[in-house]
């Protein structure tokens, strides 16, 4: 069974790139436009791994991660932050919120897939 990934990013370009890259890697991809949208997607189906941006309208990455951890406490759902931010305090905040890992853009397909494979537990989340 292929891994299910939810990618949350407000940039259509990034969503396109992520979706294409993950699709090529054989993952099943679901997309959301911001934190709120992400939570809505989660209510429909739970992925194996979540990839999220930080700077987003309505609900940003930190808030999104906190909510996911609160709402789905009993789930193993690694959350990777994919962002251009690399400031240590932001990383720390994301970790505090419950992020599993941090990938700094520019978008690199290999790096992203390697990161997913490092944190994903196939079938572990569902």
């Amino acid at each position, binding site marked *: 069974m292929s891994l299910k990934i939810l990618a949350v990013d*407000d940039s259509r*370009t990034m969503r396109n790139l992520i979706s294409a890259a993950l699709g090529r890697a054989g993952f099943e991809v679901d997309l959301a436009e911001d934190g709120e949208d992400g939570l809505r997607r989660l209510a429909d189906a*739970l992925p194996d791994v979540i990839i999220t941006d930080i700077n987003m309208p309505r609900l940003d990455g930190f808030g999104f991660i906190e909510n996911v951890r609160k709402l789905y406490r*009993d789930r193993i759902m690694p959350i990777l932050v994919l962002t251009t931010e690399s400031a240590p305090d932001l990383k720390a905040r994301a*970790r505090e919120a419950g992020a599993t890992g941090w990938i700094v853009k*520019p978008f690199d397909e290999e790096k992203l897939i390697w990161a997913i494979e490092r*944190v994903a537990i196939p079938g572990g989340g569902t």
Partner: protein
Amino acid sequence: MSSVSSDDFRDSFFQECEELLEAMQDGFALMVSGAHEAETVHAVFRAVHSIKGGAGAFGFDALVAFAHHFETALDKLRSGDLEAGEETLMLFQRCGDHLADLVSAARDEAGGPLPGGEELREELDSLIGEQPQEEEGLPAFEPVVLDLDAMGEAQEGPGSISILFEPEADLFRSNNEPALLFRSLERLGRLEARADLSRVPLLEDLDPEQCHIQWQLGLETEESEGEIRAVFEFVEDACRLEISSLGAAGLEDGDLPSLEDLISVSPEASLLAETAPPPPAQTAEKTESATEKTSGGPPRGAATATIRVDLDRVDKLINLVGELVIKEAMLSQSIAQLELPSENEVSGGLESLKQLAGEIQEGVMAIRAQPVKPMFQRMARIVREAATATGKRVRLVTQGEHTEVDKTVIERLIDPLTHMIRNAVDHGLESPEARREAGKPEEGTVILSAAHRSGRVMIDISDDGGGINREKVRKIAESKGLVSPEADLSAVEIDNLLFLPGFSSKEQVSELSGRGVGLDVARSEVQTLGGRVSIASTPGEGTTFSISLPLTLAVMEGMVIEVAGQTMVVPITAIQESLQTRTAEIHSIGATGRVVANRERLVPIVDLGETFGLRRTPQNLDGHVLLMVETDSTTHCALIVDAIQDQRQVVIKSLETNYGHVHGVAAATILGDGRIALIIDPDSIIRDTVGAAGADLQLQLAR
């Protein structure tokens, strides 16, 4: 740079950039007006941030570099470290312009930094009062590497590595899984792991969500320490990690349990099992229904759903709908000739068909309609540049920016509008000193507004400058021989002298709005769109240029006329009024020339029949109709036509593809009865027949 380089993605990136730039401009406009909230600043920040992110993915380095600087400064604004003062906002807007330029350059594959970027960067740096950090990616916690090598020979590369991995208790909260880390390590070489369970509390004290185990790992690998650390990248801030080389010596066999053993017995593995979710069957079902919902469901999020369609397809559709409307009219006419009883099914059905066709036409036209907002935003930039070049302080106020106009009209309006905006800043507004003396605020205001008015689009460019200096305008016109010194000109007529070819009101052509192009060119560009330009000016208070445009270029309100047995259409917008020849006061001038007295002026008479070589102008004009047409307030002409048939909407069919440009003819149309009629172009007829554009002015002076 990245393996993703599909053109589609690029296109979509640039399209998104346009939207983001628009959002950014909106934000700045709000900030300038002082009506912004915290979210405004966030939105601007995000826009620049997203551009940077996407640009990075495509390797547009110059764009990324500048966006990064810009973003850093915006972040200061966001965090409140920076005040959104006037100077700051001006700088940000210029940076926004530069960012837009870089996006365009990237799209045109002319990557690389653009002139002016370095200066802006420096200004940004001095604004935020620091040298931006080039590298801020260092982790907060740099693990200390202890060299536990007993043999004292630290070694790179192949050998045995000892790793102490002591996760913090909340490791699981971030869903990091030690077993997965070990699996990744196994890819690097032979791994042996030993769990230290000494800190695991008694069952009653045990918090299953906490990690109580530490690991001592032995790895035999060819990889560098960096590779090993990379495995722990995500947990390095949440653990104590000690990596040391044991040299080439192998591990003592049996010293450490194998990974498999470890996983099978480790408490956190059973934790995984415990927290395993509801029965798989139920989950699968749930997922399936969710997927179903997604694929067929409504568009995601609250954003407006859009699709991208080739313009060619839309135009083809518009053309076909045009045909449909014509066919419908033809059918109506044939049915009318059948003389059916007034109450009949056919006529009723036809009526609803007509309505439907009309609605389809409107709907299809709406596809091509676009808000003028992006164009107005471009003008904001023109104003900024013009203000900088002339040393004036100018505020642009835009109104009605959601007014929708045909895409082509917008595209072709940019040049003339740019010219008129520059003109307003350069010639319309006074210098700050002059404004102060006149008791006005030093900052001049240019208002750019759009509105729908009686089936047309009105675009006004108003400045609160000194108004047109009519005395000066007149002198210039006289000195250039455009007007006779004896002429008795009204204020409006003097204002309209500005539109005469060869007129430039500044003695010295200024670098800015001069450029060898006069307002006459701007006006004729508007006219080719079926539009008109007029001026209104009040001394001391300002000047307003008004552009009136058709909503679409595909249909037009026209007057169907008859000349020498031919049916033709005259654009209704050009017609001022129609006169019966027998009541009109017609004078002869010279051998062939004739003028008609109308509203205090003498207007030259032109026979359409002769213009098109259909006949010689009849001596006796009795029974003919004179159509008073104008191209602007100074150029008038009376067209002799034989009869007026109808006033109706006609679908414009371009002839240029097949016939090139024909003088006096703008296009053609198909009438309800299937006949083809030429749509005449009054402008070119007046130009060609009457001669100089100011001809009737001259005639009036001759009186």
